[in-house]
């Protein structure tokens, strides 16, 4: 029988990582993700794992770099300002093709900003999490159950593609408590890591983990190869759709905004407006094809997000601006209300009629 446990989103992430075979966690406190670290600090010593509180986010991500180089499943977690500090390490990990899982429970910004939930790190996560040409896989849960499930999946994807995978949540998802079926966790991967630094034992040639290539041609070749891999990663792009079959107005929202949007959609339907939801589960790769297909039937799109409008650019790009795309957003840690989303749906429908 499925075992259901009442957990905070942040705790679900930590428990999922442990169930996925992660035994090395390196962290540094920051609100609103501190429960991830606290959970790890409690559990890891009991199961022969490592919880290490680093002196900074920079050190933490570099410890992940080291542990991942040694072939183990490793993880770090932070919130917005801390993620900025990790960008150097993320770039080095990408340049060295190292797998790892990174959690960003976003808070408002820029700068020290606030500690309330936000989605304003979308560009940073999907566009430039560091210098150079590279990407991370970015997964966006919208329930505590999904925080658990996607974390397990994140480790698998990281190992399969030798990439950093980010769980992009927000302060609200991190803090909310919901029942979670934790029997869905899976044991450690079967991916062989013959590239790992475990000591040659005199049995093989040395392995080198490195991102320095002084020959421009060689570096270009490696970057092109990495982008061939990214083309393959595009296959994992996915959405979770709600009432989209006949929808004329399509909401695009991820994370907590998607849950708010559902309520607004139900209300809109009662008022006779055919509204539906496309929720990107993968933010990178962005589910372009799914949106393109939806644009063939829908009349208008409304993007709901907790930023001044970041994901909206991906939506417009995906549908090549073939339909009007409206923005319904709050920023700074404010969460949109179902009423404001309903109003945006009504306005979009009205604009189409007139």
């Amino acid at each position: 029988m499925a075992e259901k446990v009442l957990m905070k989103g942040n705790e679900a992430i930590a428990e999922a990582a442990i169930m996925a075979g992660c035994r090395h966690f390196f962290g540094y406190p920051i609100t609103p993700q501190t429960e991830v670290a606290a959970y790890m600090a409690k559990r890891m010593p009991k199961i022969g794992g490592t919880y290490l509180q680093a002196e900074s986010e920079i050190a933490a991500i570099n410890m992940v770099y080291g542990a991942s180089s040694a072939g183990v499943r490793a993880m770090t977690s932070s919130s917005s300002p801390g993620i900025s500090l990790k960008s150097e390490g993320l770039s080095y990990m990408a340049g060295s093709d190292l797998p790892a899982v990174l959690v960003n429970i976003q808070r408002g910004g820029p700068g020290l900003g606030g500690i309330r939930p936000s989605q304003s790190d979308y560009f940073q996560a999907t566009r430039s999490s560091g210098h150079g040409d590279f990407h991370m896989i970015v997964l966006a849960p919208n329930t505590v159950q999904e925080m658990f499930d996607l974390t397990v999946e994140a480790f698998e994807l990281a190992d399969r593609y030798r990439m950093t995978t980010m769980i992009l949540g927000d302060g609200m998802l991190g803090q909310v408590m919901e029942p979670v079926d934790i029997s869905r966790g899976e044991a450690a991967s079967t991916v062989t890591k013959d590239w790992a630094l475990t000591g040659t034992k005199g049995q093989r040639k040395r392995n080198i983990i490195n991102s320095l290539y002084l020959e421009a041609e060689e570096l270009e070749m490696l970057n092109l190869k990495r982008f061939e891999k990214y083309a393959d990663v595009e296959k994992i792009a996915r959405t979770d759709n709600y009432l989209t079959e006949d929808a004329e107005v399509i909401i695009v929202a991820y994370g907590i905004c998607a849950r708010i949007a559902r309520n607004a959609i139900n209300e809109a339907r009662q008022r006779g407006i055919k509204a539906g939801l496309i929720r990107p589960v993968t933010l990178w790769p962005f589910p372009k094809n799914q949106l393109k297909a939806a644009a063939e039937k829908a009349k208008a799109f409304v993007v709901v997000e907790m930023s001044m409008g970041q994901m909206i650019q991906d939506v417009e790009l995906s549908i090549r601006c073939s339909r009007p795309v409206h923005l319904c957003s709050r920023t700074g840690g404010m969460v949109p209300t179902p009423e404001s989303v309903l109003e945006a749906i009504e306005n979009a429908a009205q604009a189409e009629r007139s």
Partner: protein
Amino acid sequence: MEIVFQRPKALSDVSSHYCPGCTHGIIHRLVAEVLDELDLTGKTVGVAPVGCAVLAYNYFECDMAQAAHGRAPAVATGLKRANPANIVFTYQGDGDLAAIGTAETIHAAARGENITIIFVNNAIYGMTGGQMAPTTIPGQITQTSPYGRDPKYAGFPLKICETLSTVDGTAYAERVSVDSVKNVINAKKAIKKAFEYQVAGKGFTIVEVLSTCSTNWGLEPVEALTWLRENLIPYYPLGVYKDKEVF
């Protein structure tokens, strides 16, 4: 015929990129000889820095990681925690360790991380063309202290062994030099002791090696050795600063 001298097995059979007369080569050799003598190469993972030694991963015949500027102690921490049976060392310059990587260094020591740091102090940034380092001594002329380092203006040099000796997690800290045969022999003893301490699980060990940068000091290799002896050693006295077995 009996072989009395040869390349250590832990050192790759490739020519290095270091400038002629640079003592980075001697220090590489000492580390390799120690790995051979203690039979550690097969279980060792080294971490290369950013600086002239960035290509160290090409020169040691063990598994190697290349770290971001200054982050080698954190990378080494991750490697060691993931696999405590491995012997893990970093090889870092003074810009790498004592400027951008100060926090990573001090905290790896504070945690008593069971790793070994080979710290090459040439009192200058070599790779980027001779700028002032945290270790540049008062009066020393560099590209970015063109009138000589003035502590009133540019601050004082950092004395790493002295600093780390005050950190409880440091098991062993010694400063050595490679300017003379006698000092090279001492340097090797210190490096060997540091690795032996790590094998025994004693904690954080660091060997600071005073080294030359004839290119950026603007001196002939032999003059550079003399300059090191006459200027660096008085400012950075050689010796054991911390030894958990003794103090």
